[in-house]
């Protein structure tokens, strides 16, 4: 008659287990004690206390009268105590819980692809980006483009985290509202950043600024699609510009302003898809979509800072002195897909490790093992991507660029892992100074190496704690 609440949301326990089968004993004339033992032995074996057996006896519709009549005991409690004492304990295992981190590789590869494909907009947009060199001899518009990209990147990381907080609470309307504002802010921020950087460093600004405005809007809209899980839609929308860009890059088509208009086509497609996804998200909201207070913006700040630092480090590998070498950047960007998949793999291994380890120490060892397995795999993937792209795009030999790329890759993957497991401030706290050091001209190998070492040490210490993975 009383209504009890379960201790955890989503935990649904059946108030009354199904009735136990009445045993049909061979030989007809059943010994009541034997019958009771057979009927309740399963319960008694797995029970944690005689009371549990008494509860089961009562719930099976056996009244004290029946206990006295059929079993010759005073009441259910007496019978239960006897059964509990006489039955050896047994520990039935519940249904194994499948790991929630079993994501298909294809989904992660797709994400890596949609992170990297927008890069093909640059060869396609080259007619817009022609002009006198920037300060320091870098190609025209480099600073404006980089500033715009950095700001959007950082902003989107924070926005994505904030939206996930809303979505995790089932607050779809609030997520939709936040995303709408976030996209507008992203477009504004990226354009303003480009304008300022351009004014400080460039000469002719017009077409570059236009390109940056489009890029910023694209970044915002694609963030919406990525957060709401519409990677496929994003890929379709990217197709016109990406295919044309690839053709230009491969020399199959000459770059021309007419062809550049395909950029606009992709931009419109992405914006439309984002609008549709936003509307669908808002419609998922139930009528009671208020009440709970908003997740603080402060929680998303380290994610934004981390995104900014990541962007700086990744782009930093491209801007060396007075030329642009995009091979490592592209390799890093493409590797983000496998990196995510390997993060899932790590978490999946942790899922099993928690269930296999019977002491905190044993778990910590498994956790470290898992960490190095994930990191090693990522570095392997990155090495292959870097070598192939380096040879293709710049004709650089395998060895030297690996020295730069590997430490940086180790830092990036470890930082991503820490960020995913609640140590976002640590990830940002190491990566932001590292990015600043790169800007100040410290060598990338040193920056990458030191940050990777610090992050790894921290990860080994932190991720060995089971409470991090609850």
């Amino acid at each position, binding site marked *: 008659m009383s*209504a009890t609440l379960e*201790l955890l949301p989503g935990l649904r326990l*059946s*108030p009354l287990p199904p009735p136990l089968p009445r045993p049909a004993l061979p030989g007809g004339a059943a010994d009541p004690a034997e019958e009771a033992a057979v009927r309740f032995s399963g319960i008694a074996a797995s029970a944690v206390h005689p009371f*549990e057996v008494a509860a089961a006896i009562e*719930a099976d519709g056996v009244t004290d009268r029946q206990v006295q009549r059929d079993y010759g005991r005073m009441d259910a409690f007496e019978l239960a105590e006897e059964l509990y004492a006489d039955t050896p304990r047994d*520990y039935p295992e519940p249904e194994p819980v499948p790991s929630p981190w079993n994501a298909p590789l294809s989904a992660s590869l797709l994400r890596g692809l949609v992170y990297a494909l927008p890069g093909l907009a640059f060869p396609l947009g080259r007619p817009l980006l022609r002009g006198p060199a920037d300060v320091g001899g870098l190609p025209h518009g480099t600073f404006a483009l980089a500033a715009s990209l950095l700001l959007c990147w950082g902003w989107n990381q924070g926005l994505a985290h904030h939206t996930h907080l809303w979505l995790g609470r089932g607050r779809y309307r609030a997520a939709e509202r936040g995303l709408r504002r976030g996209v507008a802010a992203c477009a504004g921020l990226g354009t303003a950043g480009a304008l300022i950087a351009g004014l400080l460093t460039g000469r002719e600004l017009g077409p570059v600024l236009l390109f940056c405005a489009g890029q910023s809007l694209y970044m915002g809209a694609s963030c919406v699609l990525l957060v709401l899980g519409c990677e496929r839609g994003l890929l379709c929308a990217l197709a016109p510009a990406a295919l044309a860009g690839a053709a230009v890059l491969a020399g199959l088509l000459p770059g021309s302003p007419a062809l550049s208009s395909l950029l606009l086509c992709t931009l419109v497609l992405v914006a439309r898809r984002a609008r549709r996804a936003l509307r669908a998200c808002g419609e998922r909201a139930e009528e009671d979509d208020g009440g709970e207070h908003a997740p603080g913006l402060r929680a998303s700040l380290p994610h934004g800072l981390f995104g900014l630092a990541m962007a700086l480090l990744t782009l930093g590998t491209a801007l060396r002195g007075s030329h642009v070498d995009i091979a490592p950047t592209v390799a890093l960007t493409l590797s983000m897909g496998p990196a995510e998949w390997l993060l899932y793999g790590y978490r999946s291994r942790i899922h099993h490790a928690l269930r296999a380890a019977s002491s905190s120490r044993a778990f910590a060892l498994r956790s470290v093992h898992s960490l190095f397995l994930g990191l090693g795999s990522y570095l392997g993937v990155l090495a292959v991507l870097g070598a192939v792209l380096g040879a293709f795009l710049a004709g650089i030999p395998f060895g030297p660029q690996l020295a730069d790329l590997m430490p940086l890759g180790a830092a990036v993957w470890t930082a991503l892992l820490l960020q995913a497991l609640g140590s976002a401030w640590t990830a940002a706290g190491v990566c932001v100074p590292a990015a600043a050091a790169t800007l100040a001209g410290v060598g990338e190998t040193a920056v990458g190496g030191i940050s990777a070492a610090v992050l790894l040490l921290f990860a080994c210490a932190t991720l060995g704690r*089971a*409470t991090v993975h609850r």
Partner: protein
Amino acid sequence: MNGPVKNGPVEVTLLTEGTYPYVHGGVSVWCDQLVRGMPDVRFHVLGITGSGREPHVWKLPPQVASVSSAPLWGPTPQGSAPRGRGLRRFLAGYERFLLALLDVDFEQYFADELYELAEFALTGGSLTAALRTEGALRSLQSLWSRPFLATHAARPTVQDALQATDLLEHALRPLAVQPPSRGVAHAVTGGLAVLPGLTARRFHGVPLLLSEHGIYLRERYLSYRTAPYRWPVKALILGFFRMLATEGYRGADLITPCNRYNRRWEERGGCDPERIRTIYNGVDPGLFPYAGPEPETPTLSWAGRVDPIKDLETLIRAYALVRAEIPEVRLRLFGGVPAGGEAYRERLDRLVSELGVGDGVVFEGRIDTVRHAYAAGSVVMLSSISEGFPFSLIEAMACGRATVSTDVGGVREAVGDTGLVVPPREPEAMARATLGLLRQPQLRQELGEAARNRVLEQFTLERTVTTFRNLYQALLDDPRATPSSATEPVLAGCRV
């Protein structure tokens, strides 16, 4: 610290869990009756809730001065864990607490450590943060792996420790709410709602009254049988519920079960029999007047929630057996399907068609005037496998209907010799009794009249309300004096 404000109204804090004023039916009805019956008492309601965002579904009368809630799974409570020596001290106490849950030889630690945790939570410490520390997890992991504990043999894993800590942390959240500091604390259910009552009693000397309808502990044992946890987790959390029940029985100034059947659990749980007093539920005879003539077609009627605990399968099977003898008999089932209970309803539909009695069984759905449901039957049925002191039964009796019900909880005490009581889960016995009644109109009428008289004499709402009103006053005057006046009601025609 304690004591009513002189000349002020009597203040009572109702401690509920998942019921009044957030849910309809069952214990909530009882709470509403109590509150409405005492316009001169100032009530506060402290409800244990889920998310803390549940709307009130009862219109609250003016005597309810305030409603507050202690959410079990709302946003994670803020605050940071103690560090250094503070944390070590906390963990030392926590380990004794855990030991009390896991080993009967250490049960004596439970109460002291529970109140230590409460004091920690009430003086600015964050119990949630402290229990979520790695230290607390390791305490549990190393403790329950010790060879002398029963959990050792079940090989507890780190995941088990995480789950058990998580469950315990949520279960202890009510310790962090400010307990009532004056008047009477009245827990209307066992379990978590008792926690603020115990702290109120401990820290403010507020007398605690505990009314049990079902037996919370018994229901928890049943629910956790199908829980998705390994043995050690079950052992720990059920150990907590058992020790909580024990401390509630030990600490409450008076325990008022709604039937004598439940006393068995309370006495087994360590309650002094002197402090137990059965107080039956009551109905307002004005709202449930004599139902008038029976329907023309012989009809079995049933009213309640369509829920597995009501064992409608047995009822439908019994009906099929009755119909084999009396083909024109019908079965009308009044009551809604609670959210999440659709699967059960479908199972019943399948059973009905399997038995080929689809043309005689009608699911009538929710009904606003429940007495019409009783009036619709020649005989009113109750097939539950678990009950406290069922309202539907005494209401049907008040309407002057003969009843066939299952021998669970306080049913026998309610019915006495004014209806037929059969063993639960036995369709044949239920069918036999029902056939007997259907074939003897004279007997039905006599039983119906006797049933109505029984309710008027023993189970009126007025009687229940007056009893509780007097108890509140008595508890305020002298909490520990009440036991001597706790006499059991004597019921005619009832052998328990």
